[in-house]
């Protein structure tokens, strides 16, 4: 049951976007998100949507699949829209019972809904087209300048990739422990929240013990294979920019120029 959880949600297919250097995608997503917050008119969102549509088209990820992933945040979106709609002071448009919808409220609500949707689709597109491994590699490479401030960049990236590797193993283990406890009469399904939370203790304790044991074993295995931090380490799959990556950066620049130029106009 727990094994059904997919993390990072990678969509396996062949496309230009999938093959793009993770640094381009990370930088692109960042620029795209920032651009969304600079827009002052709806034309800007139009450009962003167009850009997003083009990238989705190139990525070969079915639009349905992306929308499916958005189900989880529909609730959040609804709350944001409702609150903005009714609670923004300004010129009254119409009143239902005690709640007044204002022109400004309507404006902000639509603004927020569009912005949030574009934001979430855009960032989920990155995880859909980049393997977790590639993503950590990209992050490590992009955060390298932080080394000057003594940020342990390599170590953080290593921790992330090991965590990703152990998620399925620990999930499997949780499953096993749960079944073992159920077989001995444990009950996880009935009772109030406090009771259910208490029922989790006999799962968490053995899980933590085993996780520490695994960590210890893994550390020893890594040392036995000459791991000694990022110093003097070579890469089996180094990140190298290719023509398509440079083109990607160019497209990104063009998008930024156009969207900021037009999006910041006031009508």
């Amino acid at each position: 049951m727990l094994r059904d959880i997919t993390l990072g949600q990678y969509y396996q297919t062949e496309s230009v976007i999938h093959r793009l250097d993770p640094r381009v995608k990370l930088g692109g997503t960042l620029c795209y998100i920032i651009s969304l917050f600079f827009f002052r008119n709806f034309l800007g969102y139009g450009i962003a949507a167009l850009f997003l549509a083009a990238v989705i088209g190139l990525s070969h990820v079915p639009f349905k699949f992306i929308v499916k992933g958005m189900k989880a945040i529909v609730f959040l979106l609804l709350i944001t829209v409702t609150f903005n709609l009714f609670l923004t002071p300004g010129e009254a448009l119409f009143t239902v019972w005690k709640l007044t919808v204002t022109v400004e409220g309507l404006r902000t609500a639509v603004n927020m809904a569009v912005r949030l949707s574009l934001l979430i689709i855009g960032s989920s597109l990155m995880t859909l087209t980049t393997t977790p491994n590639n993503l950590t590699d990209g992050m490590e490479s992009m955060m390298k300048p932080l080394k000057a401030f003594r940020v342990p960049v390599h170590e953080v990236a290593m921790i992330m990739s090991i965590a990703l590797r152990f998620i399925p193993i620990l999930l499997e283990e949780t499953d096993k422990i749960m079944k073992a406890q159920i077989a001995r009469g444990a009950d996880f399904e009935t009772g109030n929240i406090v009771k259910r939370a208490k029922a989790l203790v006999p799962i968490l304790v053995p899980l933590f013990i085993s996780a520490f044991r695994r960590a210890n074993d893994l550390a020893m295995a890594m040392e036995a294979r000459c791991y000694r931090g990022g110093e003097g380490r070579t890469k089996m799959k180094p990140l190298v920019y290719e023509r398509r990556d440079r083109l990607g950066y160019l497209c990104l620049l063009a998008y930024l120029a156009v969207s900021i130029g037009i999006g910041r106009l006031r009508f």
Partner: protein
Amino acid sequence: MGIIQTKDLVYEYIRRDEDGNVEGFTTAVDKVNLDIRPGEFIAILGHNGSGKSTLAKHINAILNPTEGTVWVDGMDTARQEHVWDIRQRAGMVFQNPDNQIIGQVVEEDVGFGPENMGVPTKEIWERVEESLKAVGMYEYRKHSPNKLSGGQKQRVSIAGVLAMHPKCIVLDEPTAMLDPKGRREVVRAVRALNDVEGITVVLITHYMEEIIHADRVFVMDNGKIAMEGAPREIFSQVERLKSLRLDVPQVTLLAYELRKRGIRLPEGILTVEELADALAGSI
């Protein structure tokens, strides 16, 4: 000089009670002298707690001797400046396959060792390919390790060590968590390394069947080397093995019992074929 040599090796654990106070010392390895020649296939046997794993960890410089010295390829493992050279030359495979695979893809895991050693990218790929082929896992190079069987995972671990181009591989109970099929796969891969690549193998195990092909066998008990010799010599001493809490292979045991009943058979029979031939000859 041998590839692995120990002189009066002693290792003591500090025993502590629940508050962390020192209760006393346990001697896990007690005055062990080994001399392993390049290209040998060595098996170290012993029941749980006999000190065989502790001994193995000394060869990879994970543990340092309390007393005595360990040399790997002529280098003293206690000297800090040699640690990485020693770990490259004497690779180590551990018991739990899940807890020693670092990569999320088979080929990346095999490349982990060479990456740490600073091998150039192009050569890493060559080494990964050749190591995976040596253990027969090349067609799984793009797979996630989580989807492999136990025996396959251990073969990937062996490939990971192999990619570091070691002179010697120490396997610490690599088959303890595997099913019989996985055990056979791993033992076959290990034998191939020894036969084809000429790598020195130190196999630590408590499965008697796995040591039949060894050149020399050491049996450990209470941190000491209790028996030493060729598999045949070891297996001919059934009573002694039993007193060391080790199981003798079924065939050897059967031959032993038959001999006790007066059937004329040679000592130290190791395989079913041998027993069948010997029985046919004695009738």
